């Protein structure tokens, strides 16, 4: 108990939790089926306190699991046995918006949606918009390199991180990066920490890049008799040198669930629904929207709707936004997948997923980001039905292998964590994985930070 006493004298009793009720409520994250009680949960409030906690834990070789809002979808913040959960929600300040350099500085616990709202006050824009942005923390987004709906045009979290301050496994504090757009001084260590899933260091401050806020936006909803027609539409739009900010799709199962749930009048006999948005200068937006409608029609869209105003645009977008909710309420356990393939292979992959589920008699709805090939096959199941869970794992294995055969990746935006660990070697091969492990061993030789995540 020496460690707990030391943590308590460092942070104060109110910021060190050890009661059973607290341990239970920090034993999981947003991922289905993973659960493990930690030994304690601590809430540091400064970088120095984070460093202090790491040093105390290191003395007894206690693993440290960094956590933000716990919305992760790969088990990245599920504790390991005996670990201390280091929760950064009390370090949540947005420190400054620098309109001259187009940057925003924030503590790691700042909420993603608040960051964009703060940027908006200055007419600026923070594009990455993961599905949980209303509660996810920026530290978690950087550690997982989160994506979102705007990937095709605006990229992902990595593209907006200019500097990170990190507490290293030995308790030292380092900063990587700066306000400069150009910076080639040595290795880009900053990029090593982005997406490192809390295994290399604890991010305690970030400097983000902002963009001017787009002035206009137009939303279009189109339905198709086949997924191929939707995919061809997307390819043709990109070939026409239009980069929409949103190109989202739902498959037939998802369309049916959304219609059941929202009664918004979607045609349930459609095989695919495409939600498209273009943003930017009003004149360019009007022109692009018109051309996108034309292309969709030419590629056999059954129905194409363009939103006349913001309210209608939100209404159309709700078909996509409610996709996950609509699926999640169908069954007690929802397993959300994240495989990603090159855009040109998307229709093939969607067909393969549906076929695999049919063969194994499983229920799956697939939706996701057609613009960047990121799919979210969502299995609707019940974790108490062990027989069915076995089949779900079998299906996952088949889907991942197919993804890799198409030149895709086992995870587009959720991270490896615990959920994707079994397949990392398949994707990377021995040499790449070996080098990755060498980095981990060099920076964290005692394996203190988020051990057994990404790889063993």
């Amino acid at each position, binding site marked *: 108990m020496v460690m707990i006493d030391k943590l308590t004298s460092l942070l104060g009793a109110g910021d060190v*939790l050890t*009661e*059973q*009720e*607290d341990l*239970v*409520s*920090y*034993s*999981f*994250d*947003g991922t*289905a089926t993973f659960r493990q009680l930690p030994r304690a949960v601590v*809430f540091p409030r400064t970088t120095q306190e984070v460093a202090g906690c790491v040093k105390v834990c290191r003395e007894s070789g206690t693993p440290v699991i960094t956590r933000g*809002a*716990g*919305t992760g979808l790969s088990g990245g913040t599920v504790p390991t046995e005996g670990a201390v959960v280091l929760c950064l*929600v*009390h370090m949540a300040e947005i420190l400054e918006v620098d309109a001259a350099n187009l940057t925003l500085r924030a503590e790691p616990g700042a*909420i993603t949606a608040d960051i964009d709202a703060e940027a908006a006050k200055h007419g600026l824009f923070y594009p990455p918009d993961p599905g*949980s942005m*209303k*509660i*996810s923390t920026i530290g978690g987004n950087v550690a997982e390199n989160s994506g979102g709906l705007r990937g095709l045009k605006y990229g992902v979290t990595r593209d907006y991180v200019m500097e990170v301050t990190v507490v290293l496994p030995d308790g030292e504090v380092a900063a990587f990066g700066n306000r400069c757009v150009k910076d080639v001084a040595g290795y880009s260590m900053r990029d090593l920490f982005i997406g490192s899933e809390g295994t290399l260091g604890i991010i305690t401050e970030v400097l983000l890049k902002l963009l001017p806020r787009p002035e206009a936006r137009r939303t279009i909803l189109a339905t198709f008799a086949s997924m191929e027609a939707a995919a061809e539409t997307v390819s043709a739009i990109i070939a026409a040198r239009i980069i929409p900010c949103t190109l989202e799709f739902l498959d037939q199962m998802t369309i049916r669930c959304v219609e059941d749930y929202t009664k918004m009048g979607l045609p349930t006999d459609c095989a695919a629904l495409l939600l498209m948005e273009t943003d930017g200068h009003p004149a360019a937006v009007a022109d692009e929207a018109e051309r996108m409608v034309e292309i969709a029609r030419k590629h056999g869209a059954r129905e194409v709707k363009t939103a006349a105003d913001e309210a209608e645009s939100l209404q159309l977008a709700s078909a996509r936004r409610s996709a*996950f*909710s609509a699926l*999640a*309420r169908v069954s*007690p*356990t*929802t397993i959300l997948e994240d495989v990603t393939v090159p855009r040109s292979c998307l229709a093939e992959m969607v067909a393969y997923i549906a076929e695999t589920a049919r063969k194994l008699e499983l229920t799956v709805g697939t939706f996701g980001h057609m613009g960047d090939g990121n799919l979210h096959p969502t299995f609707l199941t*019940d*974790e*108490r039905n062990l027989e069915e869970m076995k089949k779900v794992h079998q299906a996952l294995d088949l889907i991942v292998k197919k993804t890799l055969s198409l030149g895709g990746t086992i995870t587009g935006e959720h991270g490896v964590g615990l959920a994707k660990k079994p397949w990392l070697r398949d994707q990377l091969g021995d040499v790449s994985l070996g080098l990755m492990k060498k980095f981990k061993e060099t920076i964290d030789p005692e394996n203190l930070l988020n051990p057994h995540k990404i790889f063993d």
Partner: protein
Amino acid sequence: MRLKEMDFSVLQQCMHCGMCLPTCPTYDTTKRERNSPRGRISLMRAIATDDLEMAEGFADEMSFCLGCLACESACPAGVDYAGLFEASRADIEEKGLNKGLGRKLVRFGTLEFLFMRPRLLRWAGRGMRLWQKLGAAKFLPARLRALERQAPEIGERFSNELIEPIEGEGKWKVAMLTGCVQDLAYAEINRDTVDVLVANGCEVHTPPVQPCCGSIHAHNGEEEMARANARRLLDLLPPDSFDVIISNAGGCGSHMRHFAKLLPNDGRAKEWDAKVRDIHEFLVEVKVRPPMAAPFEEKVRVTYHDSCHLAHGQKVVLPPRMVIDLMPGVTRVELKESDWCCGSAGVYSLTQPEQSRLLLERKAGHIRATGAKILLTANPGCHLQIQNAMPELNVLHPVTLLAKAYRNEC
């Protein structure tokens, strides 16, 4: 134990995505998982699977939860938090985890005694009105005086003195629920509701003596008493005799839509649930007649506070706003965080005064920022809580505004 006996899929339905966290007022205060819906459900689940003993920590937690159900509105997976919340509180009561003689006495006096006996409740109300008119509270010790201030100011007359058992005629045969606190403190709102219904073609049946709907019992872990009250209401107002059953109080309406869950073997309960309507919802459904006059002589700026159990419990969000917006001479400004709990939450202001005060101050700040001198809300708990904190504000029920406007037509 209910948590162990219930279908486990109800607990499993929570996929711990965390979307409820930003809407939970207690999580917002502490930023601790156990004070969030996701954390609380994880505790319930651990109790159900014998991974956690149900002890005082859990009892404290379920007492700290407001039961505002904002999490239900935010939940992508459709978790029945209200059901889990009531089952937990009932288990906690059964196990006797909340101690204290004072608490027992108060619970006996209110839940078991007064709120089971509508006639006695009105007599107690009369006694309290006399007490209030005499200003007797000044003789109380300071601690009790603070409590006393939270009690509703009892009205001069109760619903049965203001409303005939049957009024009006027309297309719809309507049963009108007068409520308990609404009846004691705001009987005029019941009068206004009947006026509005009559003006919109309803034959309104308002039995002079009505049992409590049992919401307060279910909310506080007294399932048996909640059942008894539900049965009495079904006896008094058999649902097959009416087209709709109208409630004008968010809390009562929310509870009364789930009698079938409480009384699964009573065939009438299902029909009852299907016929319960919030007054605003009903008015919008039957295309309420827009008033031709304004409710006030001058133009007024108003704002609307969503009662938790109207917005989250019953998902009635737009209809009250639509009713308000019909009124000539009334400009409605949207209230920031309008669907956040005001801290009233049944007896929460008594059981958790600190958190209740925080929420009330937050609410009052947002109300002041609108610049409105009139606040509209449709639940007696919120009405009382906000009016007590902001005496300068005119707190009214939207239906009162509509009734005033109709009266000004002639």
